[in-house]
């Protein structure tokens, strides 16, 4: 997919802002994260009989202005789970390889880490995280991560934004260059969290328009 260069990204910070209508969206096939890759026996045992990650398709679009990138995700959800109180929130993430050739399904490794932005309906907040394998995520570098989600008409619309430039440890994005992007979506109503999620089948190439 391509991240189109726009002059001013501020018109794209709202996921239902009109300018997004002019941006072509990519259809991303999703699948449940593999049970066998879950980090422990407990999670495997408790989910082996239980469906999860049932989201089949996600719509993704992106723009950048040379300073910041915005990725807009749209997916179907019959009603939102804000994760208030003891509920689990709907959530979504976009991931980028930091270096090497990390396996998306395994959330990278020490040699090949992953940097992600994760948006959660709880608090409608987006945070930057790094991962070097399953269950290893920790706060990522400061990329001025921001995001906003809104639910309407049976769909979540979420925009996540970050700086292209990053301090050490993050995934560097450069206008005119290509990288790869991965996606994950959690269905809060189904108590999906951590590795129990829908993921894109693999990395998808992402080209930042020069």
């Amino acid at each position, binding site marked *: 997919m391509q991240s189109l260069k726009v002059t001013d990204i501020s018109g794209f910070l709202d996921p239902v802002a009109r300018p997004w209508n002019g941006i072509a969206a990519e259809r991303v096939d999703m699948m449940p994260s593999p049970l066998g890759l879950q980090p*422990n*026996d*407990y*999670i495997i*045992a*408790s989910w082996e009989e239980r469906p999860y990650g049932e989201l089949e398709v996600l719509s993704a679009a992106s723009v950048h202005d040379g300073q910041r990138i915005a990725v807009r995700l749209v997916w179907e959800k019959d009603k939102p789970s804000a994760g208030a*109180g*003891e509920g689990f929130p709907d959530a979504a993430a976009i991931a980028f390889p930091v270096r090497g050739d990390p396996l998306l399904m395994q959330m990278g490794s020490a040699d090949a880490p992953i940097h992600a932005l994760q948006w959660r309906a709880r608090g409608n907040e987006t945070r930057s995280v790094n991962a070097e394998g399953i269950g*290893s995520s920790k706060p990522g570098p400061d990329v001025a991560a921001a995001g906003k989600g809104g639910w309407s008409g049976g769909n979540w619309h979420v925009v996540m934004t970050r700086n292209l430039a990053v301090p050490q440890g993050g995934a560097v994005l450069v206008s005119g260059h290509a990288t790869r992007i991965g996606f994950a979506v959690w269905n809060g109503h189904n*108590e999906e969290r951590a590795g129990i999620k829908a993921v894109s089948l693999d990395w998808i190439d992402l080209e930042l328009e020069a």
Partner: protein
Amino acid sequence: MSDRQVAMVIDLNKCIGCQTCTIACKTMWTSKEGMEGMWWNTVSTAPGEGTPKGWEQMGGGFRDGKAQPGRLPKQSEFGDPWEFNYEETLFGGDPHATLKPSGGDPDWGTNWDEDVGGGEYPNSFFFYIPRICNHCTKPACMEACPRGAIFKRDEDGIVLINEDHCRGFRFCQEACPYKEIYYNAVTGKSQKCLFCLPRMEEGVATACSRQCPGRVRFLGFLDDEDGPIHKLVYDHKVALPLHPEYETEPNVFYIPPLAPPSFDAEGNPTEEDRIPITYLMSLFGGEVVEALETLKAEKAARKRGEPSELMDTLISRNWVDLFGPFNKSPKDIEAMRLMEGGQLGTAQ
């Protein structure tokens, strides 16, 4: 497995269900926002649903070494922390207002079935069972955490949730067969009994132990052969883990309850146990039969005026003997805990 293990023995014959432990824990640890509904220590009437309601049917733990799926307990099952319409009732100018818990007439609370129990009058039966995190040798919570945020300390076997790493995923809550983990919806973290680590590391017994007016709780290292824990668990074999079949190897042990004799159809006393032994076996396993025999025999020996090391240990005439090496008073270490000008005192 840790290098050493602290453990607790709770004597159900001395527990009077007063919940001082519950309150001691509450004022010590769980008074902050988001913790209103947390009771890291509970005392339930058995038989009964317990806390959270029906926890023994919620799964978790292991069977034949294999992790068992568990269900996530809800706050309402732990008991909602009711708010009350104090302002309206007491100062609000409505002389007919009734003081009520928030959320309508409740049908469950943390201690809802207090003193109810089972049986049929006059063969009614019940006893109290205090519970905290069992700081298991094989903690199911620790194994279930995908983030490795739960750890068992080498030096004492205390199991802790590293709240700096916890993301509130709550697999631990599901996996713990004792349902001793709570979720803080304000911080988004899971929290549980710390075995009062900040106190224990200063040699001061846990709040639930030291504040227990029933003198119910013994503390110590499992491997300390001179301590009360070792005597009760290994020598006299009267202290048993709760639901050993969950296979987490709890480090909280219970002295099983005696009860007055039951009655025959005419109301005359019989030799039958009032609490069905099958029920006690369902809680403490088959060893409970022998443990109760031992308790009865030793009590009878004392009645005959004979000495009994077991009874002396359980009586613990000198209160601080309950706590093994954790026998300091907070006063003893007060100089180190004083905040001076917003700073922790450094006097030692």
